[in-house]
């Protein structure tokens, strides 16, 4: 045992080593010369790695090691980063510098830190030859998050008759219930954080938001090579790319690792380093939140299992309040975005209450509307989408008299530019996406 360290006073963050055996990947990190922090990621019923996939697998494992390190790095954000295997090639270093800097931007903002001088992965290593195609089977990993988006992605792939597996990391009973409801084959990967991280927290580590979608992406890349999938289809909308605010000259986007920039960086990196035929994309990228909620409003069978709420419900109950806290921005946004597309009593039965008739929530909805406040740090749609949804409701008699709709109509709406408030433009897709040709027929589901 070494003496306890003060996480905020550490000097070096070290990527010590990573290994894989019998379905378990071990990722080891350390601060200075402190105790090793070992994270384990377990892949159920893992098949042996085919010999011709080994190189790809090793690259994917290395990527996972580098990306998953963000959970530990942020505990101390020391000024130096060391990688045991030697310097990274420039493309890899670029990817990680970008991920750590932008993915931790909100964390930095909240803790009053400037990471720009700190995040510099060692670079200059030799680049490996371009990765080849591995003839991966034509099937798709669809990560399930328990919210509406991944369920829309699932149904879109089902609609084109595509083969897919519902995959999720961790043991959320809510996600398991949603995955079950999809009727797809299921894959549940377990991630066990290093226990030492809890100890660091106890000792006063920095805390805050990390780009968890990037970590999950890296886990799924490894899974795709291990089990054989040619595509990983996330369900990140267009609006995930929009920044939440600007802080000391840096854009801060809560969902940066769900944004298009990261999707492009990782997708290209995978083609070059792992497998030319492994596609990483978001199936919902062409669409706005509103376009996605409009489609989700047709998917009645999911209404009593899904939740986009931010609170981590580890124990499920039958009541809406067991899935929707009603307090967080996610609850507010999903409520608002679904409202134009569902019968009001149906919507209210999903949430168990009427969030738009609760004056105490005015500040929360103001934040969504970007009125008197910045956009909240959550995975929610753009302010303009929220405003468009609110305008639509303000024109409907069954909503008009609700406290927050009325407030919007009387107080906020007169200050807005009418030309930018229509709902319809949000329902049109954009052309910007990386959906591979094989999966493009799924987009017909959104028509």
């Amino acid at each position, binding site marked *: 045992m070494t003496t306890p360290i003060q996480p905020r006073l550490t000097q070096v963050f070290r990527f010590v080593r990573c290994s894989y055996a019998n379905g378990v990947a071990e990722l080891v990190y350390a601060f200075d010369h402190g105790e090793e922090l070992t994270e384990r990621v377990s892949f159920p019923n893992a098949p042996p790695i085919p010999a011709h996939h080994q190189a790809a697998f090793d690259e994917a494992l290395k990527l996972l090691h580098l990306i998953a390190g963000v959970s530990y790095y942020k505990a101390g954000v020391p000024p130096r980063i060391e990688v045991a295997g030697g310097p990274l090639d420039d493309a890899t270093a670029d990817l990680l510098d970008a991920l750590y800097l932008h993915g931790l931007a909100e964390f930095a903002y909240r803790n009053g830190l400037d990471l720009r001088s700190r995040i510099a992965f060692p670079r200059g290593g030799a680049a490996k030859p371009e990765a080849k195609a591995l003839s991966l089977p034509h099937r798709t990993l669809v990560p399930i998050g328990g919210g509406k988006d991944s369920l829309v992605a699932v149904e879109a792939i089902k609609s084109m008759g595509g083969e897919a597996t519902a995959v999720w990391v961790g043991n959320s009973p809510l996600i398991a219930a949603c995955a079950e409801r999809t009727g797809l084959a299921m894959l549940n990967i377990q991630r066990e954080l290093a226990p030492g991280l*809890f100890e*660091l*927290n*106890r000792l*006063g*580590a920095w*805390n805050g938001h990390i780009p968890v979608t990037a970590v999950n992406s890296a886990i799924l890349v490894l899974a795709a090579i291990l089990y054989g999938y040619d595509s990983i289809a996330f369900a990140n909308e267009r609006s995930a790319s929009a920044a939440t605010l600007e802080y000391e000259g840096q854009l801060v986007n809560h969902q940066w690792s769900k944004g298009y920039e990261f999707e492009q960086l990782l997708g290209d990196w995978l083609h070059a380093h792992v497998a030319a035929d492994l596609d990483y994309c978001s199936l919902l990228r062409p669409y706005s939140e509103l376009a996605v909620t409009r489609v989700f409003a047709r998917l*009645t069978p999911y209404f009593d299992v899904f939740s986009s709420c931010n*609170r*981590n*419900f*580890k*124990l499920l109950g039958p*009541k*809406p*309040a067991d899935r929707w806290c009603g*307090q967080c921005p996610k609850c507010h946004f999903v409520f608002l975005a679904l409202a134009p597309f569902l*019968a*009001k*009593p*149906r919507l*209210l*039965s999903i949430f*168990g*209450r*009427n969030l738009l*008739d609760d004056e105490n929530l005015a500040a929360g909805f103001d934040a969504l509307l970007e009125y008197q406040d910045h956009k909240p740090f959550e995975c929610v749609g753009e302010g303009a989408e929220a405003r468009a949804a609110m305008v639509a409701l303000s024109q*409907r*008699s*069954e*909503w*008009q*008299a*609700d406290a927050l709709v009325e407030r919007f109509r009387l107080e906020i709406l007169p200050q807005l530019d009418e030309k930018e408030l229509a709902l319809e433009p949000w329902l049109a897709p954009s052309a910007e996406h990386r959906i591979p040709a094989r999966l493009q027929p799924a987009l017909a589901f959104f028509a």
Partner: protein
Amino acid sequence: MNPQSPASLPADASWIVMKFGGTSVATLPRWQNIRELVASRRAEGARVLVVVSALTGITDALKQLCAQDDKGKRIEAAKAIAQRHYELLDHMQLAVPDALGDRLAELAKLADEGPALMGELAWSALVQAHGELMSSALGAAFLTHSGLPTQWVDARDCLSAIALPNQNERTKLLSAMVECKPDPALNARLAALGEVFITQGFIARESQGRTVLLGRGGSDTSASYFGALLKAQRVEIWTDVAGMFTANPRQVPSARLLQRLDYEEAQEIASTGAKVLHPRCLSPLREPRVPLLIKDTNRPELEGTLIGPEVREHAPSVKAISARKGITLVSMESVGMWQQVGFLADVFAQFKQHGLSVDLIGSAETNVTVSLDPTENLLDSDALAALAGDLAKVCRVKVIAPCAAITLVGRGMRSMLHTLSSVLAEFGQLRVHMISQSSNNLNLTFVVDENVVDELLPHLHELLITAGALRTDDSALFGPSWQALYGSGEVLPPAASWWRQERRAELLKLGAQATPRYVYHLPTVRQQARELKSLAAVDRLHYAVKANTHPAILKALAEEGFGFECVSPGELKAVMAVVPASAPLLFTPNFAPREDYAWALTTRATLSLDSLYQLEQWGELFRGREVVLRLDLGRGLGHHEKVRTGGSGSKFGLPVEQLDAFLRLADTHGVIVRGLHAHLGSGILDDGHWGEVYSQLASIAERIGSVTFLDIGGGLGVPSHPGEARLDIAALDKVLREVKAAYPHYQLWMEPGRYLVADAGVLLTRVTQTKGKGNGNIRYLGVDTGMNSLIRPALYDAWHEIVNLTRLDEPATALFQVVGPICESGDVLGTDRRLPEPQEGDVVLVAQAGAYGKVMSSPYNLRDEAEEIILE
């Protein structure tokens, strides 16, 4: 066959109609049961008419047959249905009786023909009628064969459907109505045929001779029709539950069986939620005054619910409380409706046009609010949006949902309003959207937000009992609880009170020496402590010393390994003077001055903070300290009037929405949040609540790296009323362990107070005098202390058992208001207590006075304070 068969009945012997549902007629053992029950009624000297449903599943199978266009498949379906009956006959070791053979042949023919000849609806009605025709034919054969000669009666020959205005062909054939007046001719005709009869539920015949169905609840309704026609002695509905309850047992397991109801009350209860009886089956019985008895087929020894004409001899009581969820309110506001002819007619025409049916109505001069039940049309079409759009042209519309209608049912509701103050106070804390009470004075309905109902209902049920509005003390009206009758877990009987037997003589001696006196029984404190220690999920228990700070109790609990939770420097000093230095201490004050915190920091106590102010203004005081943050998890947990400690109406805790700000301040001042604490209120008997607080705290703790323990407070309920179940510690442990398994990295703390000491203490006082008022109808029993010693009854309407210890074995013959000598009209220790005739100097014992008794006493009126005595 049956040599003990009683002599044949006189022609005018009265009738008993017995109805058995589908599961009751589906197996041989069930039929054997029916046979026993019928024979016992026959032995009472009554003619018996048995009304049966189709075998379970047969009506559905017949409906599917009807929906089948393919003739071959219809014939297959009819064969499968026949097979079900053959199998049952096989078990009965009976040949196919002719009557059943005829029915099966007719069904096969109907399946073959299809609807073309008779018309869809008439054919479908006749096909579906076969379920009951076959089960009754089978039953006649079985009963006759087993020694109870039974005549088969075709219900269609007895029940004639009437034509009603607004009836279409569908309702005429598939949900018909029968008008029933006592029919002496039918009575005589049947009496001439025999003594035991069997007939069909659900079916009748209309004026053109076609078979019709009675629709939902049809078999029960048939039984009622026959009861009325024959002017029966009673109608018995045999089902799978003993009757109606004071609440839906799924929501309120402690709901009590209702043993007597009048027709109107029962109909109201059936309409507002109880599923055991269809509301329409009571009206035929009302005029001929035929009672209806609900009985449990599996538990015939239970009394059941007897529904009859109004019962006058009972004190008015609320009979039931129910909740219907998924209600949508439409509120319409306009000055246009004021004195404007036809305005409401126009408004209601809109509801009709959009296919939405209105249930409750509440109105003011400028507002009408109506409720809509949850229908598919409401949930999944744009009907409501269209309605709102149309209504908006004439008034201001507001759609309020999701709501729930909570209804209190009882005859003479308006005369009980004064007893409902605590119930009304509860509603005062909620958003009540509408209150409705109709002129029949049977109900009082509150429409509230749906999300409060699950927790609210058991609590209201409890409050109704406590307030004396639901008089469960009247054993003629109220039977055992559902929990006691059907609960899966063991029902925990109330613990035997130490003072009733083993220590009574000692107490009488103590009482004779001097009163008022508090007496504490330490073995009970230890026993309660050990029970809580059996909660495996709990890592640390603190005694909330505010309940009782007697040094002997503190010492006893320290010996049991408890920590101590104190809310003031005084309490901390009292505890530290008595307990060993190793005992953990918690300091959880509320709105305490800065000096209190400063002083507590000099002790070993763990401090809890509960506002931003404490860090904003005194942050440096806490630098480098580890603290507990007391959170207010908000509304929805713990609906308790004066003892509730969550929600913005309560002064306790930091609102969750200020958590981030608190954490930033903590960081600024180097304060480490080591624990989270929430306390949801007091007197909670439902184990689920703690699981909710626990998991909610845990999910919040996950956002704060430094937290290592969660304190879910106390508030463990202690039952006070007779018949109330104890808190199920094993069930609580299970709930807590489930949460612990999900969040193993947090230690779990609790801080019970009252649970440990309430039952251990009693207050002894002596009778001073009695007084009668109102022609002696109201009798007061005076004792030598009151609210000065025990303020809980006055402060919280708390109910304490009161006994005359001197005359414990004498019959309790009269009702008393037990009052103290304090010059306050609120100085009442107990209302309407049934006690033996007292004499001056009798020792009276007030039970459960160990918690919040002595510690809350006052020198008011400068009366001597009660002495405290410890029993080892």
